């Protein structure tokens, strides 16, 4: 009786857990996406329109999430800022992937001095905290939307490239790549047909995880005043603004911070789900 229960529990366990994760993670991301896309339409406010009579209005029927120091509608600003933050995050991850994946494949597969040279550069980046690299790049070009994207992309690639490289090394020496060579497959064909498909689960999961970091680091840069500049809004810059009123009007900080938490949570849960789905053994990476 109890044995049956145990068996049932162990076979059902992962599936139940996974279902729960999909609902929570997908729900969070879906809800936030909806908020960003249609939020400004249903609120009816211009995100940059000021209304000095309604400064620091708390949440109400007119301003669902209240207003800031210039009376701008926070609901609308958060939705529009979310778009900006997500664009930066997606762009930064795309940039990092575009650099890291080819570089990781090349260094991992070819080895030799190419590997040595690139990995020393990666080591150099590793010696400096990610955010510091990003700050340096922002300092070089001045804060803006595109600089933030560039800064985060350039700060992320070394970590990602090393990950891809080590995964390639693991696959490169398997017998089936030897078999492909014996059949006469060239280097590019082997990378395309044998190695890349094996890395796909890892790449999908890592890209998702990186997205979460990108949202966080955008907020970090914005908080330091190095992100998107006013009057444009991003979650990071909204959080930075809220800092001035954290004692008098603390809810503004809460409103600016909670969506960041939720989106990162949602992304990480989905990354978990993807890892479970794509890599049942959890051992190939």
């Amino acid at each position: 009786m109890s044995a049956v229960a145990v068996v049932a529990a162990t076979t059902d366990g992962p599936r139940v857990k996974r279902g729960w994760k999909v609902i929570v993670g997908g729900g969070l991301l879906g809800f936030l996406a909806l908020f960003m896309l249609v939020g400004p339409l249903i609120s009816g406010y211009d995100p940059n329109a000021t209304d000095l009579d309604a400064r620091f209005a708390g949440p109400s029927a007119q301003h669902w999430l209240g207003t800031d120091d210039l009376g701008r509608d926070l609901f609308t600003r958060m939705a529009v800022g979310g778009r900006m933050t997500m664009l930066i995050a997606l762009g930064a991850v795309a940039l990092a992937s575009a650099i890291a994946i080819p570089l990781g494949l090349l260094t991992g597969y070819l080895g030799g001095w190419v590997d040595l040279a690139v990995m020393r550069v990666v080591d150099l980046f590793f010696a400096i905290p990610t955010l510091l690299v990003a700050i340096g790049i922002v300092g070089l070009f001045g804060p803006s939307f595109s600089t933030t994207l560039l800064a985060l992309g350039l700060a992320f690639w070394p970590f990602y490239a090393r990950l891809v490289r080590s995964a390639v090394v693991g696959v490169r020496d398997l017998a089936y790549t030897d078999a492909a060579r014996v059949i006469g497959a060239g280097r590019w064909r082997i990378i395309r047909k044998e190695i890349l498909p094996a890395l796909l689960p890892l790449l999908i999961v890592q890209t998702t995880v990186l997205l979460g970091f990108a949202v966080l680091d955008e907020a970090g840069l914005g908080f330091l005043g190095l992100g998107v500049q006013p009057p444009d809004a991003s979650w990071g810059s909204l959080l930075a603004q809220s800092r001035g009123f954290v004692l008098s009007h603390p809810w503004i900080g809460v409103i600016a911070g909670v969506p960041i938490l939720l989106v990162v949570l949602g992304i990480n849960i989905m990354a978990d789900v993807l890892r479970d789905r794509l890599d049942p053994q959890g051992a190939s990476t």
Partner: protein
Amino acid sequence: MTEPLLSIDRVSHEFGARRALLPGRRGHLAVDDVSLTIGAGESLALVGESGSGKTTLGRVVAKLLTPTGGTVQVDGRDVGGLRGRELLAYRRTVQMIFQNTQHAFNPRRKIRDILADPYEIHRLPAPDGRDAALGELMERVGLRASMLDRYPHQFSGGQRQRIGVARALSLGPRLIVADEPVSALDVSVQAQVLNLFSRLRRELGLSLLFISHDLRAVYFLCERIAVLYQGRLVEVAPRERLLEHPLHPYSRRLIAAVPGLGGRDSAEVSTADAPAAAPAAGGPATAAGCHYAATCPLHVQLGRPDRCLTERPALRATAGGSAVACHFAGDESPAPVPSVVTEEVR
């Protein structure tokens, strides 16, 4: 003898050779000055314990490794510097079959795609369409065309090894390097795969470089046997000759270790069966002398002659068709017994 299909000429391979240029580091000499030939349609076995360099030599022949010394020739032509089109032509001449059937196939690709690779890469003609060609290939190795849309993990080890044979055969090679093709299989399945090899050799006139530590499989399939010890060729002889009349003390020990085979002249090999220390890790310290001297019963019997420690034994031909790399082996043996096996199949 006519010109051999494949000749391995003084091939050496040292792992980490480049690193060994730095002071204080030494590479590992996996294959040490080995010369062998394989005639057209001939089947040669490479035997020896693990670490003896037999797999390395097989990979050199399949051009998965570039040897650090020596040359490999096919039809008298050095294949060392082949590139592009010529390398592809070499791939069509020499194919390889791998030991581990679990890892020899990309688990994410269907058998159809895996077997289609050679057709795509070499633009092989398929007069009745590729599907027909792939189906025929499957049937030639005893599988069904309907299995083409399965993934590798849906096959048993023996079936996968058949697919490995099919993949190699698709290019119509003249020589197949088989690296322990049956040692990972169940005994009952081993026989089937060995029979497949034997049939294909008969039907297609294939040459075979059969790498194995299983002397029974070797006896079944191969006409000549080459024994490797720590990267060096110690003896090469026709099958019957080697199994019934091994000359090198190491060959004797190897054969004595197989119950059914060693039994017949157990008296002769009993000394060879003396406790043999495992070879020192990292290989012998010096290239001079005989690698086997430290554990060689003959060396002891002869009162530890210095020659074994200072002079590397060269491979020398003896009566009866054997060639042996030992200063003393064969001198004390009785009159050679005429070999039962024909020397070579042409």
